[in-house]
């Protein structure tokens, strides 16, 4: 390994405006090496502009940044030699085949003809695109295109990869595949800066998250810290028999404090972030003879985080995902 600062990305006061629109309004970032760092924000928050500056596609109006120790303006070539970019529009050539795309990039990155061919075959195989190798990319499905896009980004493995909304528009199955690939990249030691407007995606993949809104970082931390800053989770219980709800309410009241009755006459919930106390309370319910149909202990979703920080919900985001506990219960 070459010696470089432990920070893969270090940005100080980046500004960028387009005409009268201030797209990026003083962004600072500190992204540790070998991690996934998420930039979370709604459409138009300035995430893509930050990535484009860091990938040397556009120059900041003010501020500075070092990527892998290289200044993004003065040492742009050195930055380009160590990063790769997967843009918001899939950064592959639709008018060529999958194989041609990969050979093209291999050649541009300095591979000899035979090596570029070999590399393209290896990547097509690994990304499940061998059968589609000779088809034009414009005929690929969204998931295939994304996989090719990421394959194109690792024709020569980058030290740092910019992923701009890698799963936007993908079905859940393709999305899970892309997440798997991203995890594999991180294991191999690649640092990833991930732009996303999907809160769940940042939660699933990122070690650290910067929440961006209107060109500014408005919150920063681990997914856990961000959730904690919003408040605790909740224990949701649904009963087999709605008649038993008053009884259940008393038990939850004693165990956890304030109880809220849901609109479902068989359901109720109480604030709770301590799994042990939740378990004790559930055991107490069973002991007094209340029969439970279903329960879950929810962490606050990042949707709630966003709402709490910005005062407006993130756009185009579906309701909070059920957590693992609930999934197990209902499977």
């Amino acid at each position, binding site marked *: 390994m070459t010696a470089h600062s432990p920070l893969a990305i270090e940005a100080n006061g980046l500004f960028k405006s387009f005409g009268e629109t201030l797209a990026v309004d003083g962004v600072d970032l500190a992204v540790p090496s070998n991690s996934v760092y998420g930039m979370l924000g709604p459409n138009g928050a300035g995430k893509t502009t930050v990535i484009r500056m860091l990938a040397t596609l556009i120059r900041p109006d003010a501020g500075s940044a070092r990527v892998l120790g290289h200044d993004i303006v003065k040492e742009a070539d050195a930055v380009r030699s160590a990063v790769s970019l997967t843009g918001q529009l899939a950064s592959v050539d639709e008018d*060529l085949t999958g194989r041609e795309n990969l050979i093209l*990039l291999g050649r541009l990155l300095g591979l*000899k003809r035979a090596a570029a061919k070999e590399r393209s075959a290896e990547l097509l195989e690994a990304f499940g695109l061998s059968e*589609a190798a000779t088809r034009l990319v414009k005929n690929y499905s969204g998931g295939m295109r994304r996989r090719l896009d990421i394959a194109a980004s690792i024709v020569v493995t980058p030290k740092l990869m910019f992923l701009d909304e890698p799963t936007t528009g993908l079905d859940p199955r393709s999305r899970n595949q892309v997440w798997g690939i991203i995890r594999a990249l991180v294991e191999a030691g690649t640092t990833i800066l991930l732009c996303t407007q999907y809160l769940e995606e940042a939660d699933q993949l990122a070690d650290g998250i910067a929440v961006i809104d209107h060109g500014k970082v408005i919150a920063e931390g681990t997914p856990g810290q961000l959730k904690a800053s919003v408040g605790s989770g909740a224990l949701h219980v649904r009963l087999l028999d709605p008649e038993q709800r008053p009884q259940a309410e008393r038990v939850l009241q004693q165990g956890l404090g304030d109880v809220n009755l849901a609109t479902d006459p068989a359901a109720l919930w109480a604030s709770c972030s301590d799994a042990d106390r939740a378990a004790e309370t559930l055991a107490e319910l069973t002991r007094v003879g209340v029969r439970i149909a279903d329960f879950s202990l929810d962490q606050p979703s990042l949707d709630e985080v966003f709402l709490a920080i910005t005062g407006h919900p993130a756009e185009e985001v579906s309701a909070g995902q059920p957590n693992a506990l609930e*999934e197990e219960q209902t499977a």
Partner: protein
Amino acid sequence: MSIHPTTQAAPSPAADEAAVRKAISSISRPPKASALSAALTFGWRGMLKVKHVPEQLLDVTITPVMFVLMFTYLFGGAIAGSTGEYLDYILPGILVMSVLFTTVYSGVALNTDLTKGVVDRFRSLPIWRPAPLVGSLLGDSVRYVLAGTVIIVLGVILGYRPGAGIGGAIAALALVVLFSFALSWVFTTLGLLLRSPNAVMNAGFMGIFPLTFLSNVFVDPRTLPPVLEAFVDVNPISILATASRGLMEGNAEAGDIAIVLTVAVALTAVFAPLTTRLYRKG
């Protein structure tokens, strides 16, 4: 989570994470591609596009054929007394006109390319900055050669016989293609400045159309009013046409060729860096 069906209809291929891991670690960074290699690779990209959509060659095959037939038989009798005599005069001219018209499409193609995400990837690569542009113009030069060849072959079929033989025809074609390569930079600049492929096409032809017609491509300038004649005489396209005729007939003047080459170098010197700068800024 949903329960997986036991019989899944032919599972569509997916990424194999173990193989992805292996692929990530199985490569070390090669030395950078040379400027020439990068440019040639982009030229190859242009060729691949033609291979996938051969209809793109219509403008460099059918259009020149139309021009030759139309101008020869429509104007030949009126302008030169006979189509045969006019063909001798106009064929080198049509060669110049057809190939120059094709250069506009270089700007149109670049403008279209810019709307695609792949350009961001190209711009984030550690390659010689003008490589994508030089490469695509090299690819376009192949189209220019094709258009020129179609015209010369058709001319020969119709009875045109270049005085300097095949060598002369090739020399004329080479000069026209070289000048066109230089002129393309003007249109790639336009392609980066204007907002839509249509705008590039309109602006391009608005420039190239009068310049081509106000030259000696179609008529002998001695028949023109003096002011117009003065303009036609200094129009670089006239000089290119004269030089091409000369090369084909074997009586070219070195001065004409020198002027053509100087203009070509000047166009490239101004517009190639301009295009590169605009392309870099995105």
